[in-house]
Structures are given as structure tokens and as C-alpha cells.
């Protein structure tokens, strides 16, 4: 039996089988409801309000008695038993709105991604000085001599000969379709053509032959495919100029906010297909918009370069990622061959190329390879550390001679998941927070300067730091009940502190931090810190040996270094050792797109980098437990924090 489900306020209607979950119905209707746990009834993010109709639901601690009275249900645990009218409240919606204008981009995504200027800076290290300008795809305009009885080599040989006159390329490939068209094309274009040469693995391919001179118009895209956010950059391959940058949510988040949940989802019926489409859709819509805004012809976009974690790349290429999850955690491919973008469903020039940055292992992907490249740690004698803070915190240690990397499962707390009022770094997220030590009054700023609706990672770092400083919480992350303050109360998930009263919030609900949140944040910071210190210890090195620490990802330029140190996320070193490099994955991808040498370098980095498995490191657990304290059990490691 089928029933109609209508979703408010979008007024979208869909017909589904009886017994299907409201979450599944919403997905079918093209609505994106928050669901961090992937529909397991654990995260409590998919709350909806039943306006009309019959449902079946399971008991859950995620709906308060008050909410139950108002008709709240968890969409994932509630099934359709009649025609329904369901309202999706603001806080349950995934904000898929894209960032269009540059200013808006800068202000909204500061928390996640570096502004263009900062990306440029990294570019200096990555490609301008070190790598030649040799894009993945180059265009050459050729005026071929017409064949005559003295010069009667074939069309194909003729074009190869002309290319070799300008470029030293011993081996060239060409696809059959190009060969088929060649004879007619050369003659109809009066032997004046533009060839696009693309690097395909170890050879050069004549990707495209077009009539007349289009060599001025050669564009490419660099992508960072993150678990949470996808960023795209349109680049003029001739001038190296960045024409525009955009970011959008990875729509895969609807199927689970972390990698493991998505790998599990990929095993379900049509799961892989849907995950693949979710990411491709996001990429294609960004391509379309950037191309349109910059008046670039889609046919002049000749290549794409993607950096992403290993699972994201598998899903992009619709390759089954399931083996990454199982011991011994081997991915299908770390080094993905250069393919035609259209094979993966990416809409650029139909013969355009798609390359992926090689990864190190199942849990240290091409985004990190790109990050290493962009940070420049692989080019210097100085011992450096790259920390990419995300759900899976990746850490790289080394210099130009050696590199070692590990992945620490920090959990999604710094990405605003698994915390009661957490959210991604989008409009309305609290990103800066201070508490006046005298009167304990709070002040904060939100992304987009709108009334707050939640807290993003950089906000949480500020909040924990400020709560510690004002003794509202102790070093164990427990709220000080001896403090007589009406903002301390017993909530549904234990003791909590009200950060922003509902009268001041965008969704008219209190924004709180609970002891459970503090526990999750403590674990996340402990995972990152202890992974870094364990790796150093393993190599018989200490933080003092480290000359430079690059922080990437998660909160990019908005991370308050002082506060990150005060909670023990980052080591207590001279502040000038730290550099924020924002989205190092995207800048690395751009460098590779613009230089075949950089691509070679990335290959070398991926091959050279050793993977360090934390789970089998004997001292790791001990380091981790010692780090489960603000800032650390061994206070002497944080001398600047001793009062």
C-alpha cells in the first residue's frame, strides 16, 4: 500500500510504501534532513513534527517529554502508516544553500576554508617557486602544412610531427574517436587546429583536436572532496589565475556524517549508486555555476583534479569502499589512474580528464598528500608537522627526507556533530566566544552575523577555553555546581550550561553545552594531541624538535591558537611555530592541476610517506588517557597554562 507524505514548509510531496521511514521518504522527496548517525536513531538530529496522519514509532531518549507533546518524532525511527503531513523544523534541515558571492564566501566559510588571499600564499610554496608551469592539460595551436605529393605522411603522423616540433614528447596516444574525425576536421579547418595534450599516467594523450585557435581558453577545476564539504576552484590553466572558489555541502551527509557510516550505507541496495550521485551532483552544480559566472565555455574546461580522503575518492569513482573498513584496511586503489571525467559523470568537456591525488593508505588519503605538498613540509630540512583537524584527524610528521602519517579518530565533535548544539560552520554558527571573567557575561559572533542556531568547531574551542578560564568547568570538563548561576542546570542529557538564552537565538531554543559534549570534545582533542605525541615518541623525538606546525582543514584560519593550546588540542610551543594553511587539500590540488611536476611530487610523497598504525602502538592508549584532561594530565607539558 502507498501513502502520500507532504513535507512542510517546502510543500514537497512524495508517495511511499507503507512502513517506510519518514527519513527515507524525505530523501526520496529530495529533502535533506540532518542525520549524523545515518538513520540508526542515535544522533537525534532528524526531528520532525507530525501535523497530520498515523505513524508508528520506536521509543527514543532523543525526544523530550515536552517535544513529544508537540508532536516531535525522529524521522528515522518513525514509519509512514497513512497519508501524512510532516513539518521539518529549521534545526533538522541540512542547509544546502550554496555560497555565491565572494564576500559572503569569505565571511561564511572562514571557519572552514581559507580566503583566496591565504590560498595564494600557500601557492607560492607549492607551485610558483618549486614547480614548473605545466598544467595537466595544455593546448597548442598548430598550423599544419598541407599534405602534397612530396610530404604525404598521414594525418595522424602529420599532427604528431607538428606537436613534436614544439614539444619533446616521445610517446603520444590518441583515442579512436579522435582518429575517426581527424581527416575531416583537419581539412574543414584549413589545417589550423588546437590540440589539447593531457597527461595520462606515464604518457601524453591527444585529448582533443578542435578547429581554429582556442589555445587562449584552457580551464580546469581543482576539487577538495571532504566528508562534510566539497570545495571547487575554477582555474585558468594558462595564467594560473583562480577565477572563482565555491563550497557546498557534501550531500552524502544525508546518509551518515562520518566515513564509516557511509561505507556501511554503500553496501545497502543502491547505496553506492546514491552516494556516488550525491557527490557528483554537488560537483557538477558547482562547475555549472562557476563556468556560467565566469563566462567560460564548458568545452574549454579540459581537466579536473580531485583531492579527497580515500573513501571519498572511491565513492566519486563509484568503487566499492567496503574493504577500507575491514582489517587489514586495504583500499581498492590509492593511486587512481587518470581517466576521462565523463566516465565518472563529471560534466566538463566530454573528453576532459579527471585525476585524483594519490593517497597513502585507507585512512590517509590524497587530501593529505595534497596537504603535504601545499604545506611544503616535503621540501624542507626542518622537521615539521601537518595536522588536519577533522572527524578523522590526520597527522603528518617529517621533512624532505622522510614522512610518517597517522589517522586519529577524533570523532566529529569539532565538526559540530555528536554535540548537542553542534552544527557545521554555516550561517548562524557561533564561531567566536568569550566570557567576561568579572560578571560571567558572554559575548559571541556567528557566521553570517545572524542570530545563533548552534556552535561550530572553532566556537567549541573558544567556549571550552573560556569555561575553563572562568572556572565554570573544571579541568576534567565537569560543570562547577558550587557556582551559583542559573545558567547551570540539569538537562535531558545531564548537567548543562546555557550559553545563549532562547530569546536571543535564531531557532528560539537555548544553546547549551552539556557535560556529555565536554566529554566528546575532550576525547576529540585528546585523540589529536596524543596521536601527535605518540608518533613523536615512537621516533624518539619531542615537540621541541619540531620547527613548524601547520594546521589545516576543520577551522582553517579561524582557529584561535591561544585557545586551542589552552584546551590541550595543540602543543604548548612558541606561537610563531604555528601556521594556518586553511584548506591545504584544495591548494595542493590546484598546484597539481597546474604542474605535472607537482603531480610527480605528489606521487613521490604518497609513496614515500609511511603509514603509522596507532591502534597497534603500545604507548598510544596511555598517551590518550593522559590527554583526557584540560589541557593535559602532565601539566608540565603546558607551561604557559600554569596559573
Amino acid at each position: 500500500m502507498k501513502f502520500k507524505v507532504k513535507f512542510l514548509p517546502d510543500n514537497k510531496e512524495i508517495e511511499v510504501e507503507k512502513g517506510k521511514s519518514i527519513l527515507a521518504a524525505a530523501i526520496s522527496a529530495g529533502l535533506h534532513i540532518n542525520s549524523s548517525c545515518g538513520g540508526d536513531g542515535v544522533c537525534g538530529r532528524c526531528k520532525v513534527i507530525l501535523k497530520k496522519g498515523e505513524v508508528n514509532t520506536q521509543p527514543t531518549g532523543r525526544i523530550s517529554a515536552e517535544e513529544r507533546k508537540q508532536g516531535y518524532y525522529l524521522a528515522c525511527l518513525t514509519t509512514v502508516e497513512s497519508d501524512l503531513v510532516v513539518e521539518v523544523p529549521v534545526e533538522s534541515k541540512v542547509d544546502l544553500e550554496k555560497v555565491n558571492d565572494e564576500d559572503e564566501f569569505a565571511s561564511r566559510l572562514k571557519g572552514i576554508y581559507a580566503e583566496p588571499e591565504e590560498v595564494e600564499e600557500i601557492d607560492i610554496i607549492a607551485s610558483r617557486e618549486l614547480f614548473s608551469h605545466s598544467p595537466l592539460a595544455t593546448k597548442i595551436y598548430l598550423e599544419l602544412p598541407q599534405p602534397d605529393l612530396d610530404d604525404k605522411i598521414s594525418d595522424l603522423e602529420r599532427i604528431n610531427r607538428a606537436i613534436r616540433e614544439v614539444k619533446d614528447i616521445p610517446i603520444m596516444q590518441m583515442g579512436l574517436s579522435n582518429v575517426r574525425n581527424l581527416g575531416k576536421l583537419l581539412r574543414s579547418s584549413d589545417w589550423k587546429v588546437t590540440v589539447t595534450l593531457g597527461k595520462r599516467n606515464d604518457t601524453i594523450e591527444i585529448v582533443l583536436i578542435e578547429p581554429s585557435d582556442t589555445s587562449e581558453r584552457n580551464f580546469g577545476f581543482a576539487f577538495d572532496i571532504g566528508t562534510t564539504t566539497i570545495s571547487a576552484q575554477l582555474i585558468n590553466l594558462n595564467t594560473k589565475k583562480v577565477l572563482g572558489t565555491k563550497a557546498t555541502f557534501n550531500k552524502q551527509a544525508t546518509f551518515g556524517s562520518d566515513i564509516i557510516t557511509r561505507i556501511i550505507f554503500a553496501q545497502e541496495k543502491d547505496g553506492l549508486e546514491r552516494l556516488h550521485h550525491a557527490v557528483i551532483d554537488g560537483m557538477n552544480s558547482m562547475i555549472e555555476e562557476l563556468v556560467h559566472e565566469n563566462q567560460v565555455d564548458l568545452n574549454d574546461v579540459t581537466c579536473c583534479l580531485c583531492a579527497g580522503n580515500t573513501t571519498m575518492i572511491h565513492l566519486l569513482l563509484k568503487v566499492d569502499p567496503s574493504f577500507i573498513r575491514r582489517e587489514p584496511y586495504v583500499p581498492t586503489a590509492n593511486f587512481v589512474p587518470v581517466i576521462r571525467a565523463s566516465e565518472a559523470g563529471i560534466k566538463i568537456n566530454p573528453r576532459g580528464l579527471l585525476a585524483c591525488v594519490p593517497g597513502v593508505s585507507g585512512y590517509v588519503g590524497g587530501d593529505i598528500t595534497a596537504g603535504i605538498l601545499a604545506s611544503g613540509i616535503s621540501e624542507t630540512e626542518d622537521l615539521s608537522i601537518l595536522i588536519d583537524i577533522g572527524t578523522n584527524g590526520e597527522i603528518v610528521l617529517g621533512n624532505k627526507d622522510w614522512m610518517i602519517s597517522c589517522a586519529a579518530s577524533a570523532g566529529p565533535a569539532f565538526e559540530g556533530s555528536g554535540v548537542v548544539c553542534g552544527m557545521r560552520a554555516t550561517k548562524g554558527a557561533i564561531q567566536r566566544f568569550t566570557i567576561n571573567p568579572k560578571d560571567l557575561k558572554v559575548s559571541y559572533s556567528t557566521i553570517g552575523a545572524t542570530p545563533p542556531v548552534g556552535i561550530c568547531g572553532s566556537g567549541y574551542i573558544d567556549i571550552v577555553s573560556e569555561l575553563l578560564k572562568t572556572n565554570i568547568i573544571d579541568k576534567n570538563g565537569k560543570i562547577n555546581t558550587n557556582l551559583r548561576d542559573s545558567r547551570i542546570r540539569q538537562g535531558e542529557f545531564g548537567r548543562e550550561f546555557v550559553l545563549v538564552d532562547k530569546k536571543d537565538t535564531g531557532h528560539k531554543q537555548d544553546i547549551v553545552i552539556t557535560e556529555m559534549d565536554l566529554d566528546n570534545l575532550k576525547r576529540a582533542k585528546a585523540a589529536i594531541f596524543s596521536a601527535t605525541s605518540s608518533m613523536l615518541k615512537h621516533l624518539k623525538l619531542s615537540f621541541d624538535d619540531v620547527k613548524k606546525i601547520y594546521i589545516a582543514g576543520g577551522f582553517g584560519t579561524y582557529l584561535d591558537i591561544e585557545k586551542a593550546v589552552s584546551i590541550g588540542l595543540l602543543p604548548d610551543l612558541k606561537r610563531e611555530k604555528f601556521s594556518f594553511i586553511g584548506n591545504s587539500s584544495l591548494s595542493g590540488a590546484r598546484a597539481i592541476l597546474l604542474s605535472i611536476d607537482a603531480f610527480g611530487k605528489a606521487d613521490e610523497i604518497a609513496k614515500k610517506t609511511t603509514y603509522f598504525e596507532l591502534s597497534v602502538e603500545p604507548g598510544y592508549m596511555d598517551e590518550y588517557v593522559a590527554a583526557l584532561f584540560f589541557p593535559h594530565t602532565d601539566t608540565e607539558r603546558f607551561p604557559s597554562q600554569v596559573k
Partner: protein
Amino acid sequence: MAIELLKMRWSNAINEVIIGATKQDGGSRSSVVKVGGQMSLPYLSDEGNIPNPPVIAHEIWDVAPADWPEALKEPFSSVLGKPVEWAKKCVKEFKAELLCLRLMGAHSDYGDNSPEKEAQVVKDILKAVDKPLIIIGCGDNEKDNLVLPKCAEAAKGERCLFGNAIQDNYKTLTVACLADGHSIIAESPIDINIAKQLNILISDMGLSAERIVINPTIGALGYGLEYAYSIMERGRLSALNGDKMLAMPYICFVGYEAWRAKEAKASEKEFPAWGKEKERGIAWEMVTSTALLQAGADILVMRHPQAIQEVQKTINQLTGK
């Protein structure tokens, strides 16, 4: 050629904690007990000064302990349920220099005594005997938070040692100890990190590190003794190497753990091969205690007078008395 023994030189001493206050210090005890202060591993007095030998605290209860085995109840049969008499007996008959009063009567399973009633017990004992006192709550956080501050107030000036503060419930007791001049026992679940964290949390509230005693939590012989042993040893090594936040004396509740062991409780009927019940429990308490002395215990809280007597002999031998 004479062999020169290699000697370890440590950089940090364990804090000395004084339990009890004489008239001179504003209390009414006839003597005080000092623990800690050593700058070496147990009994290696050649390597560093060991000013104070380990001490044994005799455990007494405010109420009659229902679940103690007969063999353990027997020496106290006339005083069970009479804490003042019990205290007197320990001091007079068993020559106790230190008592540990467990306020089990506050627990809902043992009578749910009011804080006022427990405070009166403390007062009465302090009046009846003049030895220093350790005071332990019933183990129910909420109730202890009501009872212990009252008792701390009742014992103001007597410089008692109060316990147990745990990571999730240390603030109330810390405040009480601060206000009334007592020291505190910080309990951690056989975990060196939590032990240290709790010491930091307590000293952050203003109670100096010199007034904290670590209860590392132990297991009896056959029940995890080796875990406790290695944690204690590790903590002590860190402390002697300079970690001030672990440089506290250890208190071990041996009686509580040893008499919970099946070997101490099971009847002879049930396990004829194990021998007499009476001897088993005592032996279990003794063996556990002597192992912990080696691990670095400074205060042993024990129950059976005979076990106490034997362990005291061992201490005397080890310290060359």
C-alpha cells in the same frame, strides 16, 4: 675488590602528611601520625631519607557490620554497633596509633543515619580516644556530601584525614576540608592518570598538595593485587622523579578488600581443603598488606587485630626497628 653498589638518586620527595593535631596545634590528640616524606623507594634508606615508617589504621564502624564474616566479627563481638567502645578497645587493647572510622551507618542499606547523628559519633569518638582519626564516608556520593561536611565541622581543628574524594565528586569534601583544616583522601580507580588529575583538581580548589593522600584503589591477593602494585610503583617512580602532582603518600584499604575475597569468607564446610576460615581471612589480609608495603603503601587500613599485629612486626623488621 670491593663492589660498589649503584645508588639511585631521586630528585623529589613524597609530601609529608600529618594526621591529628595535639593541643599545641589546636587539637586534642595526644600524638600525631606522620606519613610520607621519603625520598626513596620503599625500604631503600641507603638511597634516600625515609623519615616515617608505614602505619596501620584500625578500621572501625559506626554501626554493626552486617556482612563481615564471623571470623572477623569475633574479636570485636562485644563492641559491634558501639563505635565509641570499639575505638577504645582498639586503642587500649590493640594499641592502635591511628583509627579509621567508616560511617557506613549513613548508607541507606545500613540505617540511613542523619548527618547530625554521624557528626555526633565523630565527636564522641574524638572525646573518648586521643589518637588521630581517619574518617570515611559510606560511599554514596549524595549522602556523603551531606554527612562528611557535618563531620568535618564536628572534628574542626583535629586535622583528620577525610575520604574519599573521587573524580566525579570531590568538590564538597574539598571545601569541607579547606574550611575545617583537614586533609583529604583522593581515590582513583587503579589509574595513574586519574590519580594525578584528581590531585590537580583538588589543589586547583586551594587545598595544598601537602594535604592530599592518594587512595590508588587496590585489589586483594588474587583479585588484581598486581595491577594495584604496578600502578602504585609507577606513580611512586614518577613522584620521585619530580612529578609533584603524584608526590602524595598512599593509603590502602586492605581490610575492606581482603575480607571480600572468597578465600577469606567461604566456610570450611564448603571448601574443606582450604583449612580453617579463621586463619584464611587473617592470612589473606596479611599477605595483601605485606605486598602493598613493598609497593609503597604508607597507610594500611586493616581490620583483624591479629593480622595487624603480624604486619606491624613485618614493618618493624623492614624498617630495622
